[in-house]
């Protein structure tokens, strides 16, 4: 009856039996009669859709033409992409002077390079990379895009941007080649990796300062032509407004959400009121009030750059939405987590920042991304102050005499552009979600 197992079973690697393609198909697509029917039905629908789209958008389409009539002459049943192609500069850069477009491209490239480390696995200090983008990049980019005189603050911050960009690039290279952080690498080079914390810190600070001075001096030699914001437009403007909106509405939303749950009645009532009022009216009326009524409320002669007004309105508006999302996330955190944090002695901000927010935000990633996508699309409302963002440009094509009435193709082009941008956002978020939920039992 008794069984004694003196022989220990060794660990074995997991079986890989269930990985063949056929097995996968069988399990996922044809596991039952109903599933098989469903699969076939779906495939048929997809076939129809793809076929229609290809014929209209590709095989029967016209890509080169002088005007719309010519398109019709070539094909009555296909799309006329020639108009969109003709307008590409407008669509991407708005009315930005054509000989200055390199500035936008350079700014965009800079941003991409800057953010690149966040996607690379071996690079350290991702949070720092994100923080420097938010703090420094706007100043440098702002100057590159608008040009003109550089104020003191701008110059300092832009120099900071150059320094941090250089450091981040160096950090990325070090990370990729040697799999370590830049700081430890530098310390190693100087032979100080065993020194006391303080010496190490001082050394690093000194190095950063040493980099800052030449950057500052070099910047003062810059002199870019002024380009008024009224000339900004197209995808560029859309990205500027939504970029700023995205970067600032989340922090704003977190503060508002905390305010709404605060134990101080004044803070709570103010935050609640602010949130409820702002998110209860359409953004378009807020913008309208902000841009045309605002001057009426203010003393005579008070002027505020309109683009700034719009951006502020977008930020406030979205911060309120974000606040509600964050609040929902907070509601889902069990009380035990607060208690756990309290007992290890964390204060309010420590508890929130280290324990509660990371969990709440993780739960809310789908909502946050949904909201950011909405924000990107809300920027279309800047047309109210006479700016032509991406959608505005696309809709103007049909009013340009050669392309009179051409509006479906631009809209579809726009849909595709928006889809690409938004989809990459939601793709990245999904990646984050999976990464962050590594710890959960499944």
């Amino acid at each position, binding site marked *: 009856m008794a069984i004694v197992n003196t022989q220990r079973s060794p660990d074995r690697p997991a079986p890989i039996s269930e990985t063949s393609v056929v097995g996968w198909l069988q399990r996922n697509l044809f596991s039952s009669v109903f599933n098989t029917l469903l699969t076939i039905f779906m495939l048929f629908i997809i076939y129809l859709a793809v076929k229609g789209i290809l014929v209209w958008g590709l095989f029967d389409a016209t890509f080169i033409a002088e005007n719309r009539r010519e398109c019709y002459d070539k094909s009555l049943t296909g799309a006329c992409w020639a108009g969109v192609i003709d307008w590409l500069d407008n669509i991407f850069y708005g009315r930005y002077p054509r000989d200055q477009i390199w500035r936008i491209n350079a700014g965009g490239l800079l941003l991409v390079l800057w953010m690149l480390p966040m996607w690379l696995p071996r690079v350290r200090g991702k949070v720092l990379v994100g923080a420097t983008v938010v703090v420094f990049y706007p100043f440098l980019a702002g100057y590159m895009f608008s040009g003109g005189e550089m104020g003191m603050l701008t110059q300092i911050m832009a120099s900071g941007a150059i320094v941090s960009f250089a450091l981040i690039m160096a950090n990325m290279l070090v990370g990729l080649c040697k799999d370590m952080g830049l700081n430890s690498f530098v310390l190693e080079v100087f032979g100080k990796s065993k020194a006391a914390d303080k010496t190490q810190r001082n050394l690093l600070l000194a190095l950063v300062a040493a980099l800052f001075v030449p950057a500052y001096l070099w910047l003062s030699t810059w002199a870019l032509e002024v380009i008024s914001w009224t000339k900004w437009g197209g995808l560029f403007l859309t990205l500027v407004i939504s970029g700023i909106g995205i970067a600032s509405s989340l922090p704003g939303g977190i503060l508002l959400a905390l305010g709404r749950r605060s134990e101080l009645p004044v803070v709570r009532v103010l935050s609640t009121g602010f949130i409820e009022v702002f998110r209860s009216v359409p953004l378009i009326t807020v913008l309208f009030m902000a841009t045309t009524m605002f001057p009426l409320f203010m003393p005579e002669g008070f002027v505020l750059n309109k683009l700034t007004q719009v951006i502020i309105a977008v930020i406030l508006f979205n911060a309120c939405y974000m606040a509600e999302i964050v*609040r929902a996330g907070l509601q889902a955190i069990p009380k035990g987590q607060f208690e756990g944090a309290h007992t290890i002695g964390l204060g309010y901000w420590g508890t929130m920042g280290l324990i509660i927010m990371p969990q709440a935000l993780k739960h809310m990633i789908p909502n946050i991304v949904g909201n950011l996508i909405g924000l990107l699309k809300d920027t279309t409302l800047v047309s109210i102050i006479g700016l032509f963002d991406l959608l505005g440009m696309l809709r103007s094509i049909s009013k340009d005499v050669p392309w009179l009435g051409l509006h479906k193709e631009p809209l579809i082009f726009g*849909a595709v552009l928006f889809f690409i941008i938004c989809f990459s956002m939601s793709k990245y978020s999904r990646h984050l979600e999976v990464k962050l939920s590594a710890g959960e039992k499944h």
Partner: protein
Amino acid sequence: MAGWLAGWLAWYLVSNTAHNLEVRGMNTGFGFIDSSAGFDTDFKLIDYTPGIGTYGQIFLIGILNTLLVSFMAIIFSTVLGFFVGVMRLSHNWLVAKVALAYVEIFRNVPLLIQIVFWYIGVFSLLPVVKKSLDLLFGTGNLILNNRGFYLSTPIPGDLFWMTSVTFVGAVIGAVLYRRRARKIQDSTGQQTKTLLPSLAAIIGLPLVVYYLTGQPLAWDVPMLKGFNFVGDTSVPPSFLALLVALSIYHAAHIAESVRAGILSVNRGQQDAGMGIGLKPGKVMRLVIIPQAMPAIVPPLISNWMNTVKNSSLAIAIGYPDVVSLFMQTALNQAGYAVEMVGMTMAFYMLVSLTISFFLNIYNKRVQLVER
């Protein structure tokens, strides 16, 4: 202290505005509400005659139109959104991916483009008037074409009251039946399907009575008169396009909120639900969803508000909502920008605050009792 500050601020703004308006010679006042508006609109829920009707009536028409479309869109999108959100978490690969594709496609394309798509790409492509689809097999009672959706107006005959009475009776019966089913479950544990029988009774019984009493109903069939069908009850295609676009778009957003909420529920809860033998669907309904509600409700409120607000995009396809009718057409005719925009904002604010008031109450109720 804060009160004083607010009071001062309000006074300051008002006096500035008054001063500015005076200097610029703009008139103000709400007198225009009673003056007659000289234009017409093709979809209205109240009586209105152009030239006689007032701006006040126009405002009301706009409000009702906005409320109608957003109310229906909210209902559809919420139901669809929960459905898709749950589908997203299905263990069936295909189902999950279809739901994912749905969310990605409809969430990532601007709503405006979607509305225009449904309008131009779908509802305008319905058959023209002369080839209208007759949805009730040639009776002409339900007509769909690219001008809209027409219902014939019934004219009740002598014995029609019997049908009505049967209908009311069937509804009451269904309610009672539901109650009884509950009671039966409580007392014997038997779960009875109530949905299908009640529906059958509500629809079937009146029909039987209707035919037995000799079809006492004359139909004012939509008639092809001149260019259009003329029947009292018609819905323009712009309404249908807007409704479909809003529902589908917001359902995609709600689906993501629902999914997020469900995932925020501790995995052990599902284990426990399964452990006591509940079927996956019931685990979802009885265990997971109720706990997910605290995380779902706030984004859901936002989504509902957004639906109401996004219905203002109706202007792109000519559906006469409050913005298009009042803040656009009427404002252009009469001026009074401050007042009209103000009234429109006030309307939206009222609707949204009402929504958020009730849902916040609900939100309080779904909070878990914790130690």
